[in-house]
């Protein structure tokens, strides 16, 4: 039985139809076929969150997501977050707060933070809630405080 399938999905607002192998993760397809190299492979077992993308606006680990499951769904990566050369609120807050050190965890954090902020638009959240909301992302430089502050600042702007 063939392991090839054709999937139709939306990536950062653009409709794509591509051939994938059922053995491929979404991470592999995004990086290798579509050049979305913001999606990082860290642990490859769903522990570190470096490969976080939004699938129908929910943050998920692309390393543990079969590419065929993306059929009919909408994917968002960091590549699609800035509009007309302007960073998204969350991205700008990461810059302003100095929330980036070595940078490898940053795209995953930005996407998890984006979903967190969008889901709680207009609500007051504590730093503890932000920590829980980002618990699926690891930063080995341990720059968590500035990341939490960045999320806090991107919430401020919305209220």
């Amino acid at each position, binding site marked *: *039985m063939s*392991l090839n399938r054709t999937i139709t999905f939306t990536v950062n607002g653009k409709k794509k139809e591509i051939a994938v*192998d*059922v*053995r*491929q*993760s979404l991470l*592999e397809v995004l990086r290798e076929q579509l050049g979305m190299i913001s999606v990082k492979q860290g642990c*490859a*077992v*769903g*522990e570190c*969150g470096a490969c*976080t993308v939004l*699938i129908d606006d*929910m*943050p*998920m*680990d692309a390393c*543990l*997501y*079969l590419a*065929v*499951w993306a059929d009919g769904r909408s994917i968002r990566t960091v590549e699609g977050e800035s509009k007309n050369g302007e960073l998204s609120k969350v991205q700008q807050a990461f810059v302003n707060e100095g929330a980036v050190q070595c940078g490898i965890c940053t795209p995953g954090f930005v996407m*998890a933070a984006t*979903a*967190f902020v969008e889901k709680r638009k207009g609500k007051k959240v504590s730093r503890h809630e932000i920590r*829980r*909301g*980002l*618990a*699926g*992302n690891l930063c080995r430089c341990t720059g968590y405080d500035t990341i939490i502050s960045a999320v806090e600042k991107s919430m401020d702007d919305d209220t």
Partner: protein
Amino acid sequence: MFNIKSYSRADSIEEAIRLLGENPEAHLIAGGTDVLVKLHKGKGQFDHLIDIHDIAELNFISQNDDGDLVIGPLACFTHVAESDLIRKHIPVLSEAILTIGGPQVRNMATIGGNLCNGVPSADSATPLIALNATVTIQSRDGSRQMPLEDFFLAPSRVALDHHEIMTAITVSRDNYAGYYGHFFKYAMRNAMDIATIGCSAVCKVEDDVLTDLRLAYGVAAPVPIRCKDTEDKIRGRKLSSQLLDDIAKAVKDDVSPRTSWRAAKDFRLQIITTLAHRVVKQAILNAGGTIQ
């Protein structure tokens, strides 16, 4: 690339059962957070897959006419934990689920997958067995129902034959109405960690009497367990701190923890008795009881 040797996608329960019948080596894959990790680590027994990820008829959270709560096995943890029905009637399940992994994992992992994977640390198992949940299992010969407690046979082994699939998890109204619960997970980290011990208590309190208690543990035995002897001993007793001490003492005979790299047996026993005290107390307080 995952080392998948054969792959078929099922779009209905019927199709999944038929595909299972055609391939004796095949395993079901739902959310993928267990199966894909095993495949990544090179474990060969999961290389023939039947993909049930998108079977819509298995993804729901509902309440039937009798008031029973019915959860589709493909409901992801986030949807279960955030469901109004679940939060209103069995909040102890939401509490437990929110200790699992992190947001990404909870968005992908399914409640049925957690149960069918059959590990003693499955965090959704203890609140559900404390709620006397039943599971519905379907095969080509029809469907059967069994208590979730009996579904766990041994580590990573559940009462599911090759051609069977779990189709529903039910908590009947009489098992949650008037009951209050609490859950606590002891782990080394507050997120992204496997329980050293998990504990769920569900109880009913009337006129300062503990009229019913259902106490369940994860990782306290080869499978998630209920402490039935303890429950029988203390049912009907008046609330007091002595009662909590007696429960903590009695649970030792109901559990059989072991030493692993995660924790030694004695340490697990210590956590088990401490949690008996703490989790039952909180469940009683949630039920409106007072303890002198």
